């Protein structure tokens, strides 16, 4: 399956990459969409090339902007939802459970 066509000459992302991330994200793309999204993502990533060039080896990453640590909750039960109310919002339910089409394969 070689569908890897670069968006530009020095593309940062190919249609094969986009097809892969779409599948990881559970999105289906029509061929024209694949092409369009690839060009758009290549543009955006192309803009991000400015930070790719930075040497940041000694810089700590900042995953969150608060300086908090050890935010903990006492192990005390709180309210739970009424099951019928919850299931009434579900697309499909049966026997007190969420019903889904057959699952192929087990969880990783």
């Amino acid at each position, binding site marked *: 399956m070689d569908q890897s066509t670069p968006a530009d000459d020095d593309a940062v*992302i190919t249609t094969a*990459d*986009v097809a*892969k*991330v*779409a599948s*990881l*994200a*559970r*999105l*289906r793309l029509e061929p024209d969409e694949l092409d369009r*999204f690839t060009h*758009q*993502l290549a*543009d*955006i*990533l192309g*803009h*991000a*090339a*400015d*930070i*790719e060039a*930075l040497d*940041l080896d000694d*810089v*700590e*990453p*900042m*995953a*969150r*902007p*608060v300086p*908090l640590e050890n*935010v903990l*909750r006492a192990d005390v039960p709180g309210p739970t*939802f009424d099951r019928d*109310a*919850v299931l009434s*919002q*579900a*697309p*499909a339910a049966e026997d007190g459970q*969420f019903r*889904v*089409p*057959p*699952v*192929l394969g087990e969880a990783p």
Partner: protein
Amino acid sequence: MSSDARSLAASVRSGERSAVDVLEEHLSRIDEREGDVHAFNLVTAESARAEAADVDARVAAGEDPGPLAGVPVALKDNLCTDGVPTTCSSRILEGWCPPYDATVVTRLAAAGAVAVGKTNLDEFAMGSSTENSAFGPTRNPHDLTRVPGGSSGGSAAAVAAGFSAISLGSDTGGSIRQPAALCGVVGVKPTYGLVSRLGLVAFGSSLDQIGPFTTTVADAALVCEVIGGHDPGDSTSLPQAFPSVSDHLDDGVDGLRVGIITEMMGEGISPDVAARVRAAADALAAAGATVEEVSIPALTFGLSAYYLVAPAEASSNLARYDGVRYGNRVDAPTAGEMMEATRTAGFGDEVKRRIMLGTYALSAGYYDAFYGKALKVRTLIRNDFDAAYERFDALISPTSPTTAFAFGDKTADPLQMYLNDVCTIPTNLAGHPAMSLPFGVGDDGLPVGVQVLAPALGEVAMFRVASVLESSLASSGPVAS
């Protein structure tokens, strides 16, 4: 008659006006113009009337319904409201009713505010024009051919059109400040952690903050004080009250040091917008502040970092919309195909684009080059800001590079749309507060917003600067267009 929140609440608390009367006045404005503006996904007139009647009953009983007694408020439709549909302007959540209120919604109600409806937004708050709503765009009340900005376009337009005295939005990369600027109202993004995110439908969790739209700086201060403060239900909530900004609105800026951010005054910024920022700088200097230009070099990397961090978090935050437990489903023969069909049909293009971008930035082999690098750039930006804040108490800049633009102007090119947020994004990356307030109009006669930025928890200085700008504008009279 003054229709700012403080005046309305004062008249309701004193019994001078009834909350029902205040509400009806706003509902009639909605009746008149909502068809043109489309600020709302849902107007909750009936429950609002009941809430207003309750406020009146409490006043009659000699109780104090709170500092926002009878003040009509519009809520961005990504804030959970108990039993009231919350859509994020997305097909995928259409019809879903949360079983709980967001903390900010609870706090507004406890302060006596009356919720009039849920406002339109770019789907899942992804956009800068409210054109990405699955339920059609919102129009700018100042010019119906122009966008209101985004993503909180509906909330900005609601206040600008007088549909509600105040509204709430969420700001991940400028989604409160930019539409506030484009609609000519005040908009605040508080310090990250000062306002609980519990019940805000997540977009970029480390960037999202809830904040108000108001017509005055004093109202913005009041609403921040009401909705802010510690919430044990949000692990990233700071264990402190919102700084008491209202007490300092009249402190002036004498002796404050204010910097104009060089990187936000040059290329890409419309000259008429830059001119209003210089006018604001002059006003502050006249009021006794020291005003100087300051260069913060790392800010130029803000856009790149933001468009990796926010989509990365979003790609994970939006994974839960899969057709299993709530929201819409598109059926298919297997669970995996059902999820894919549901998400493919349920999300619009901009949401898909960001999910894919974020998935890519996090995926094996690219994490270090993209997401990991972007987190380090956040550190650079925060450090550069911190260095600037050693010399300055607050900074100013344009909020948006231009005034409100026309529908369709930027929809074809996502990158052009993203460039709208170049002035607002860095504060989200740093977790700092910033606000936008109207400061005259541009060459096209449309509102221009000036952004006031401050260090983490520097809200008092930020509001002092904003307050001085607001009164200087009022005393200088209307700005010629």
